[in-house]
């Protein structure tokens, strides 16, 4: 079930738009913000709230790569795998992360601390390689500085 606050936030977004359905991306983001990911029940709940079918909600949820339809860890690491970061060696960073966290892209650590995902260009190609953790951007990453960054997230 959606919480009162979630419904309020969704209604607030829907009020800005000519019809309710148009708020579905916002609704997914609102629910994910609080619960970490979107499970089947949330899909049904959002569908009911916005008067659309669950299949419609899911078709949107699965289109956008930053809506998670599977559980994620407490912290989500997005590593840029696009071209400037490729040239500047993101693969080395990926290898170091694999070694430190024992997970590959798409996986979550056993202690639920981190989920690691690839992400397209983050718009800071002049400071490649780059990664984002929980929305926080880190640039000019070197394998030596990774530990300090990861330490901030427990």
């Amino acid at each position: 079930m959606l919480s009162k606050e979630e419904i309020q936030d969704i209604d607030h977004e829907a009020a800005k738009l000519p019809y309710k359905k148009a708020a579905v991306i916002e609704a997914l983001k609102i629910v994910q913000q609080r619960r970490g990911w979107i499970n089947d029940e949330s899909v049904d709940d959002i569908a009911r709230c916005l008067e659309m079918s669950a299949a419609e909600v899911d078709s949107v949820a699965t289109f956008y790569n930053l809506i998670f339809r599977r559980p994620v860890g407490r912290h989500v690491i997005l590593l840029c795998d696009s071209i400037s970061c490729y040239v500047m060696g993101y693969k080395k960073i990926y290898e170091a992360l694999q070694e430190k966290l024992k997970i590959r892209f798409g996986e979550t650590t056993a202690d639920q601390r981190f989920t690691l995902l690839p992400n397209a260009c983050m718009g800071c190609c002049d400071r490649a390689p780059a990664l984002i953790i929980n929305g926080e951007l880190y640039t000019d990453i070197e394998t030596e500085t990774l530990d300090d960054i990861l330490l901030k997230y427990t």
Partner: protein
Amino acid sequence: MERPLTKNIHAGRQPLSLKEYTTTGGYIALQQVLKNNTPQEVQQLVQKSNLKGRGGAGFNTGMKWSFVPMGADAPQPKYLIANADEMEPGTFKDRLLLEGNPHQLIEGMIIAAYAIQANISYVFLRWAYKKAARVLEQSIHEAYEAGWLGQNILGSGFSLNMHLHTGAGRYMCGEETALLNALEGKRATPRAKPPFPQVSGLFGKPTIVNNVETLCCVPHIVNNGAEWFQSLSYSEDSGTKIYGVSGKVNNPGAWELPIGVTMRELIEEHAGGMKKGYRLKGVLPGGASTDFLTEQHLDIKMDFKSVAAAGSRLGTGTMVVMDDATCPVGFVHNLQHFFAQESCGWCTPCREGLPWVEKILLSIEKGEGKQEDIDLLQMHTQLLGPGNTFCALAPGAMEPLQSAIKYFRDDFDRHIREQKCPY
């Protein structure tokens, strides 16, 4: 050398507040327009300035605005949208404008909305730009407080609301009709054209979508005139451009320069040349979906026509440099992986073709390629080329591929001959 868009943006400093923006000449253009100009006059001024869209396609902005139905019979409401999705790999120019001087964009949007008589506007911002989101949220609020946004702006009778929309990922959202679908809460697949968005766009109403950098030029054109804007450049395209260089250069970054500076000046002077021990092997002049150029093209001017004459596109003007220690096959594989992943899946050639291309490139890179693979790749550059798909993603993807085969054929052949990656 004038730098109208960035002269007040300084690295490491906070974004310009409303107060700082107004003390440096901000919102004068808007007052001037609301007091003295009809919407048509603004359209004509911008058309005459020859401002071309900075989002990649380079269409004359004033001309684009002129397709919007005007007058009492025009459908209402009309919409103006700033495209701040910036997801073309290798592109990092709009971020600078968004984070550095948000009111410049807001003023440009208000003037553009006035020119087409739109009463609702959106900034469509990519999810990853968290700082820009905070800055914009705050600045839009300030603009409402100051009376630059809202009902009956400055007593002119013109009203405009502005909303910030942040996406949920996917490159496709930057394509203007896909962006409209995303704003409507749908999957971001493009729309078949016609009808064009200028006539039937967001929620079926007339809509203009412009790139952030395009809109930021508008207040300066109003303040200084069309001739001034033309005189800024070194070539027949008007104005300045935010150029950028990334890759193994000494000083990667973005700079506002007259349109028409040479690629050599950008790479050797502004970007400080190649890092020690590396040579330049190829350049994508305007982002991931532009054709490679090479050393022989260093002296071409970075304007729409000259880059096209050299066989590529100015695109976003932010270039990616490929050095001689980077495998061209791996480089192109990385690009095709991106495009295959981001395909929205609407058209068969793109949905089926790009993963196939990606697979072939991977097998060549791993040393498992066959000579016929090159023919297969070349066939795809035809089949996925312009005219065969609903949007420009697939044709754009083929640009670096076809030019890589042209300029770096030896590298492809060596992988196949030696059955390994020589890099």
